[in-house]
Structure formats: structure tokens, C-alpha cells
């Protein structure tokens, strides 16, 4: 099995057709046509508008930019983008302190701040980093080619098992038109065939961009191109934390390596033609592996497709994918089951979820700039509360409407600059509330489908999943935080532990002309909100049960009557309690026909 060779594209694959590729912006020559500049602005203003609005409503949406005043008062422009993050390469057990990860480079350069482990799960914990080191196994990574004369390889070497990574280079000495080449990194082959438009420089750029896009390589290696040479740097290594883990974190689930097997066809509703079928595994946290190899089969009209059962790893389910139409080069999510044999009796739509672009089943770890907690909490690495008392609150909808559709109008340069309105939906939410709440985005600075798609899906995720804001007040070192800093929130009273949020606004209270307090407003943060992916992922807010949940009334000893208010028959009771474990606390509980038995 192998992936098909890359070739020069006849046109912009992301848009319509008919235009000479050289006529649309950023069309890159030869094999480089498989790449695109991440964000461009190609727009004209022909009606006068405030320049602030032009930047905020027209320019910034094309590149997910925002502006702040720095600590020195200067203006700073930023992109919304992922913070430093990595995925665990193995399971982490309770008590472990050295964590093997796919990219430790950000922490080798700067091991400050905090490491949030397994965010958005009930296993999250925060630790401080002691050290970060590259893995000496980087020196053993293989890099080969089928044409050693034209493609000059220098293999991996130089990793010292500490702060120096291994590097390798690919120098393109020649790019002969029509010659099939392959470059294989760590067992993953990139086949390509140059055209007359190619030069060593375009091939090198293509290789760097394509390796960087390869879902099985891009997390563990960095690719940089200079003229005709690609430099590959190993990134994987080990992170050592200060305090042993107190939660177990699961190992990444291996990508399925076997294509689905056709079990048969039955009379059904599908049209005739070839279909592609594949599957992923989905772990307990809702993360999926990469797609299995696909099976392609052709059926006559009025049949369906039945695939044989597959056996997922323990704790996983199987997500089935199929082409949304015969002859399509797309594949979309269809259904999820336990791996039993499955009949595709219908087809997904083009706007159904796309397949994962990265295997995210490993334990995610990310850098957070601070941790806020309302109490001492070992999971959060905090020894005391560092928020002002009773200042935590969260808002579900008072900041923005919960938009479940993004309408982004852009012009497609590859289609004679035709105006196109791209709509992306959260169908589940629309079905749930039986209402479409759309948000219109001015995308006239965008001139290609690929960029429009990334912007629109990112905004939908930001407006849906991240439209949950925490608000709290703190002081002292908290004054150093700035907009878009990501911090972890532990609001034990609400059962929220280590929730990553990104600071959106700060309000300083200066009433005493001395040390101010600052009130932060911060929506939920996830790296997947701001990467280049369009894959749909749920970002849950995990509210864990209170420590005293599940206790029977006889477990609770009420101490004294002072401060206890109790109304039977549906009211509330606030009680100070201690129990036979020696724990104490305050609980507010709603009772029905309540009876409290005093032990």
C-alpha cells in the first residue's frame, strides 16, 4: 500500500476551474502548487469606512489577527494560534515524572510556566517542568531516496540526548521532468514527479511543505527550506515534571493499518459507481486516530455496501467513513459503532465531519502561563487560593450569541474572482435548538477556498465550543498576564479542574490607587480552535462531581446550628459538615422531602 504520487495540479484544487494557475494569487509553480501561503489579504476598499473597522472587520478576519498594547505601550499585532503543545507517545502511570512526547522543542527553549496535562478530561493535572530533553533515538531515524544522485541525503545525527536535536538534510541537486522520485522519512514515503515548471527550489519547497503536512510526521519533525535544501529537525523527547502524576493517562491508540473488508452488497438506495470506505478508532475521550487505508469498490445502482466487523482496541469505538457520492475524492463521517459489521445504506453530506488530520489520542500537554484555583489543589499544583474570594463566575451566553452557522463571503480568484458565500454549520446545535443563528463574516480579503474554509470552521468552533467564558478577579502576579495568554482554571466549587481559557479582556480596578485588582474574562481555549485544521472536534467542559457527592445523609455530621438554614419540601440547606473520614466543608444542597439524620 502507498499513497499516490504527487503531481502538478491542473488548477487550484481548492476552487473552481478554468483559470490559468499563473493568473491567481499565490499559485506556486510546479509541485509547489500543492502548498499555499497560510494567510493572505487580497482586497480592495471602494467605500469610505473607519480605518479601525477596516482592520478589525476586514483585514483581521482573514488572518485571525488581533491587536494589543504591549507592556511598553506599543502596538502589537498577533495571530490567534495554538500555544506550545505536544502529545504523549506512551501511557503515563500514576507516580511517573518523565513523560515521552512528540515535540519537546518549545520546552527545551523555555521550560518556564506550567504544563497542563490532559486538558478537557477528568484526568487533567498541572505540573511544573524541571527539564526537557531531546531523545537520542532521533539519531536512528531513517531518511532515504530512490535517486541518490539527484536527491542528496545527509542522515540524522547530532542529538546529544539533551538540548541539541538531531538534524538531517535533503538537497535537491536536480529535478528531472517526468522522473519518479521518492523520499522516505521514518518509513513514510513521499512520491513525486517533477514537471517542466519545477526547479530544485520548487521541489525542496514542495517536500518541506508536504512533509510538514504529513499527519504521521508533522508532530515529530520540523521542516525548513532554504533554496534547494530541506533541513529536518527531530522534535520528540522527554519532559520531566516536578511532582509525580496523580492520574493515569492513556497511551495513544495506534492508527488502523488494515482497510475495511467488503462483506457483501445488498439491495439498497446507493447510486452506481465507485465508493471509498475507511474507518478510525475513537477513544474514551472522543479523540480519533487517523483514517485506515481505504477500500474502494464499485457497485451497480440500487445496492448498498456492507463491510465486515473490525475489532477496535479496548475502550474504543469505530467511526465509519464513506465517499459522499460515487467518484468523489472526498470522504465523510457516516456512523459510529462498536466495530460490528456495518451497512452503508445512505451517504453522508459534504458538510458532514471530515476525517481526522492528526492522531490526537495521545495525552495532550500544553503550556499555560498561570494556574488559578480557589483552593489548595494538588491536581492543579497550587498550594493556596489565588483568586479573590467568590469572584469565579461563568457566562454561557451573555457575551455573544451562540452562532451555529458562519456565512463567509469571499472571492475565488481561481474562478474569475467570483463572489462565493461559504456556509458552515453546527447541524447538531441547529437541530437541538431548532433555530439557525448565523454570523456573517466579511471575507472579501480572502481569495481562495482553502483559506476561507479554515477561517470559517475556526470561527464556528470559536463561536460554538469556546463561547463559554470564565470571569474571575485576582491581583499581584496576575497583573502580568496579557490578552490571549492561556491559563488554567480550577473552580473546585463548580467541579471544574484545570480548564484552559484564553484571556480576552482585563479590567483593572484602581479604586484604592495602590495595588489594583484585575478581573479577567476568558473563553475556553483549545489548540484545535486555532490550528490549520478544519476537523470538527468537541471541546467539553468537564464538571466533576463534588467531593461530598454521593454521600448518604448518615455520612454527614452537622456541627452546631449556627449558620445552618434548612427549609424542607424543596428548599435549600447550607450546612457545615464533617464526616467520619475527617473531612470538613460547606455544602449547599437542594432537597426534596429531605431528612437529615444527625449521626
Amino acid at each position, binding site marked *: 500500500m*502507498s*499513497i*499516490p504520487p504527487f503531481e502538478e*495540479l491542473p488548477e487550484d484544487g481548492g476552487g473552481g476551474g478554468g483559470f490559468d494557475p499563473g*493568473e491567481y*494569487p499565490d499559485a506556486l509553480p510546479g509541485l509547489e502548487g500543492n*502548498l*499555499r*501561503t*497560510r494567510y*493572505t*489579504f*487580497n*482586497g*480592495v*476598499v*471602494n*467605500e*469610505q469606512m473607519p*480605518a479601525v473597522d*477596516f482592520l478589525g472587520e476586514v*483585514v*483581521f478576519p482573514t488572518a485571525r*489577527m488581533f*491587536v494589543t*498594547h504591549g507592556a*511598553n505601550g*506599543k*502596538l502589537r*499585532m*498577533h495571530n490567534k494560534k495554538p500555544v506550545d503543545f505536544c502529545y504523549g507517545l506512551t501511557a503515563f502511570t500514576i507516580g511517573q515524572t518523565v513523560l515521552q512526547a512528540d515535540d519537546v522543542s518549545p520546552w527545551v527553549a523555555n521550560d518556564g510556566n506550567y504544563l497542563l496535562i490532559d486538558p478537557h478530561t477528568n484526568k487533567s493535572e498541572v505540573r511544573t517542568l524541571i527539564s526537557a530533553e531531546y531523545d537520542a533515538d532521533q539519531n536512528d531515524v531513517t531518511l532515504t531516496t530512490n535517486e541518490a544522485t539527484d536527491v542528496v541525503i545527509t542522515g540524522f545525527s547530532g542529538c546529544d540526548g539533551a538540548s541539541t536535536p538531531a538534524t538531517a538534510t535533503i538537497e535537491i541537486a536536480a529535478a528531472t521532468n517526468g522522473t519518479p522520485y521518492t523520499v522516505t522519512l521514518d518509513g513514510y514515503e513521499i512520491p513525486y514527479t517533477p514537471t517542466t515548471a519545477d526547479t530544485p527550489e520548487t521541489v525542496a519547497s514542495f517536500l*518541506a511543505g508536504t512533509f510538514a*503536512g*504529513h499527519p*504521521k510526521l508533522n508532530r515529530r519533525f520540523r521542516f525548513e527550506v532554504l533554496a534547494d535544501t530541506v533541513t529536518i529537525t527531530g522534535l520528540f523527547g522527554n519532559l520531566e515534571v516536578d511532582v509525580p502524576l496523580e492520574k493515569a493517562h492513556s497511551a495513544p491508540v495506534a492508527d488502523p493499518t488494515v*482497510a475495511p473488508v467488503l462483506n457483501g452488497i445488498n439491495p439498497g438506495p446507493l447510486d452506481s459507481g465507485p465508493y*471509498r470506505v*475507511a474507518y478510525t478508532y475513537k477513544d474514551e475521550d472522543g479523540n480519533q486516530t487517523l483514517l485506515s*487505508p*481505504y*477500500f*474502494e469498490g464499485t457497485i451497480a445502482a440500487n445496492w448498498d455496501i456492507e463491510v465486515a466487523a473490525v475489532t477496535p482496541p479496548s475502550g474504543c469505538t469505530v467511526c465509519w467513513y464513506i465517499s459522499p457520492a460515487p467518484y468523489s*475524492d472526498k*470522504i465523510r463521517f457516516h456512523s459510529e459503532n462498536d466495530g460490528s459489521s456495518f451497512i452503508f445504506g445512505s451517504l453522508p453530506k459534504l458538510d458532514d465531519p471530515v*476525517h481526522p*488530520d492528526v492522531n490526537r489520542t495521545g495525552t495532550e500537554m500544553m503550556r499555560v502561563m498561570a494556574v488559578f484555583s480557589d483552593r489548595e489543589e494538588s491536581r492543579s499544583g497550587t498550594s493556596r487560593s489565588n483568586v479573590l474570594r467568590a469572584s469565579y463566575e461563568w457566562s454561557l451566553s451573555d457575551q455573544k450569541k451562540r452562532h451555529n452557522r458562519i456565512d463567509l463571503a469571499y472571492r475565488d480568484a481561481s474562478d474569475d*474572482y467570483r463572489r462565493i458565500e461559504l456556509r458552515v454549520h453546527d447541524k447538531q446545535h441547529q437541530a437541538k435548538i431548532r433555530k439557525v443563528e448565523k454570523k456573517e463574516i466579511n471575507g472579501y*480579503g480572502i*481569495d481562495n*477556498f482553502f483559506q476561507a474554509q479554515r477561517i470559517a470552521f475556526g470561527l464556528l468552533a470559536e463561536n460554538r465550543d469556546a463561547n463559554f467564558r470564565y470571569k474571575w478577579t485576582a491581583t499581584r*502576579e496576575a497583573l*502580568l*498576564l496579557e*490578552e*490571549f495568554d492561556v491559563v488554567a482554571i480550577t473552580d473546585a466549587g463548580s467541579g471544574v479542574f484545570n480548564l484552559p481559557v484564553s484571556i480576552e479582556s482585563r479590567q483593572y*480596578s*484602581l*479604586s484604592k*490607587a495602590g495595588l489594583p485588582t484585575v478581573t479577567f474574562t476568558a473563553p475556553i481555549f483549545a489548540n484545535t480552535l486555532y490550528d*490549520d485544521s478544519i476537523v470538527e472536534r468537541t471541546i467539553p467542559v468537564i464538571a466533576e462531581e463534588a467531593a461530598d457527592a454521593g454521600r448518604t445523609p448518615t455520612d454527614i455530621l452537622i456541627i452546631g446550628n449556627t449558620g445552618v438554614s434548612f427549609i424542607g419540601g424543596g428548599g435549600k440547606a447550607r450546612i457545615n459538615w464533617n464526616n467520619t473520614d475527617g473531612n470538613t466543608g460547606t455544602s449547599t444542597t437542594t432537597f426534596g422531602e429531605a431528612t437529615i439524620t444527625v449521626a
Partner: protein
Amino acid sequence: MIDNAALQSILATATDFSLVTELYASNAVPSADGFDPPNAIGLFAAVEGITFRGETYTRLVQKFGNIKTTMTEEINSASVTFSNISREIAQFEFGGTGFEGLIIVIRLLSRGRSVALTDTQILFTGRCERPSSGDKESLTVHAKSILGSVDVVIPRRTFGPEDFKGRTPNDPEFEGFIHMPSYGSFTYPRIEKRGGFLGWWNKKQVIATQHYSSYSDLDAKKAVPIGFGRVQIMLVLIGAVDVGPFLQLRLAVGEGPIQDIINARSLDPALPLHPTSYVELYGLPGVLNGPDDPTWVAPGYYSRTAHIRGAADNSLLDVTDPAPEVVAVIEWLIITTPSAGVWNTQAWTNNPAAVTRFVWNDPDFFNLDANWIDDEYSTACWNFNSTKIFNTAISDFSFVEEA
């Protein structure tokens, strides 16, 4: 997060914090460490005895309002209420200086431990608005972010006849649009029917005279377009005249200097653009936007306006044809781009970071001194935007193996 260990230590442990406010001239600019009190024109605090950087702060602050900073569309803002009991503030406001337009800084410092600028934290930097009210006891000054305090519009001008810098029309750098009508006549032979059976046998050639005059689509309410990157637009008719076998055309693209005009074409297949009678002017200032042809319709340099001078062929002799609509792909403004991290290279670009920096820095827009812009961040933004990434919209199967 502000990465400053000394300040972090001060914030964590100091107990002698004070807020102060500083006023700087309207054209002051921050250094790498921010504004420096010795350069201020006013230093104020809420308590007596505060000195920092060798300067003493006057106790005139009655109250600091809340400061809000945000990354949303909302404009950062702050306010300070000064005591006017001593009348110093009234004198400051009425005595010539005035608060409006001054740069205001609100700083947090430790009276005992803050020595260097970096030992303090600037909570707000902005520009003062004109105080809306005051009395014998107090005067409150509101301030907004340096960007929010200026009413700047884009595009900067319209196709009106005036030059916003007051230049006269005979100045080559005049940037207004005045339509100078041109008119004339031409003669041509015409066959006329003179009766007879179905008019077949009685025809006569006569010399006909056709009068013409130029016309224009210039509209004082229409903005002169400004663009970035590469876009396709319909050009604006500065002037046209049907001189018989062809139409003379002069068409505006918009604000210059631009990089190129590509594939200009008439949308009327009956009136194609002449392949060689065609000149592109890229919107340079004054005479650089030439040479002009004074015999062509609507002559002039049209300083800083990119335009083309061309002709539409196949015009009928006996009718006045309307000018065809002309579209072109424009590689628009040449603006400042970074070279090795230094923003000093003029080039065409479609990078949104450069567009943003241009609008902040250009004299026709926010006109902020380059020192107001933290270019370390501009460069990071530029690099992030310009990274080439694999186009996953091409196919869902780029990296998926086939069984």
C-alpha cells in the same frame, strides 16, 4: 505574559504600591521600555512623596477610573479624575496645554523597589480626549487607545475636485479630479439613399460631420479605491470621448503606487481595447505618474492615482458609443515589508501583517510613528502568515493509503 522576573518579584512581595499618571506631548513615542517620566509634561499621583526616575509626582489625582483592555473590537479606555482645588488642573486645561490629544500613561510602581522603567508596570497608554466637564473641585479626563482616539477613514479621498492638501490644479502633485471637457468634430463619408424603387438605384455619398464631447463618471461621493494584494476590479472612467473610429479612454484604478495592472480588458466585445494604444501609470506622485499625453482625453498627471490611458476600437462613426466597462487584475499597493526583521523594504505584498502596519504607519491614515509599533510582533505575524502549508482542500486522500 510579561516576561520580567524582577517585576514579578515586586508584584509578588512588595507592599508599597502606588498608581501614578503621566502626561506626554501628543507627538511623544514610547521607547522599548515604554515612556520615561523625565520626558513627561505632567506627573501626578494620589499621594504625596512619590518620586521615580528622579522626578516628583504632584498629588493631584483624586480618583483613578477603571481601565479596560481587550482583544475584541472594543476600544481600550481609562479615566483619571484630577483635583482642581488648587486650580492647577484648570490652569493646565485652560492655560494653553490642555489635555486633549496628550498621551496619558497610568503606571503601577513600588515606591521603594521600582528603580528602572522595567520595575514598573504600565497599565494603560492612550490619548486624552477633551474633558467634557469639570468644576472647581475636580476634572475628569477620559482616554482611549491610540488607535481608538483618531477618526481615520479609508480610502482617504474621493473623486472630488479638491486637493485635501490645498494644492492648486496646476501643481503636478494635485490630487483632486477635475474633468476638463474636450470637444470637437470630425467628418466622414456617408452613403445616403435618395428614393427610387426600394432605394436601390439612387444613393449618394455625402460628407457628414459628427460632433463629439468628452464625458466622465467622476463622482465627488465616490471613493478612490485602495487595495492590497491582487484583486480584480472594474476601473473608474475618468474621461472618454468618441472621436470617430475609436474612443479615447482614461480610466482610474485607484490609490498608488501599485505594482502592476494585469489583463486589462473591455467587457464589451464590440469595443475591445486597442492592443498598443495603451499606457499604464502606476500612481506615483506628480510628474512621476507620467508622461502625460495632453492630446488625450482628460489630460493630467493624476498624482498618486494609478490609471490607464487607452483606446477602444471599432467605434461606429455615426453614433456616439458609450465607453465600455473595463476590468483588470491589479497587483495593488507597494508598501513597507520586512527584510531580516527590519521593516524598511518597499515591495508588493498580500501579507495581512504588512497591510496592518501600513494603515497604522502611513501618513494618510493613523500616521503613527514607527516607534509606536512593536515590530518584533509584526515580524512574527508576517512570518506566521507567510508560511506555506499543505493545501488539504485539494483532496481528502493526500496521505491516505489505498488497500
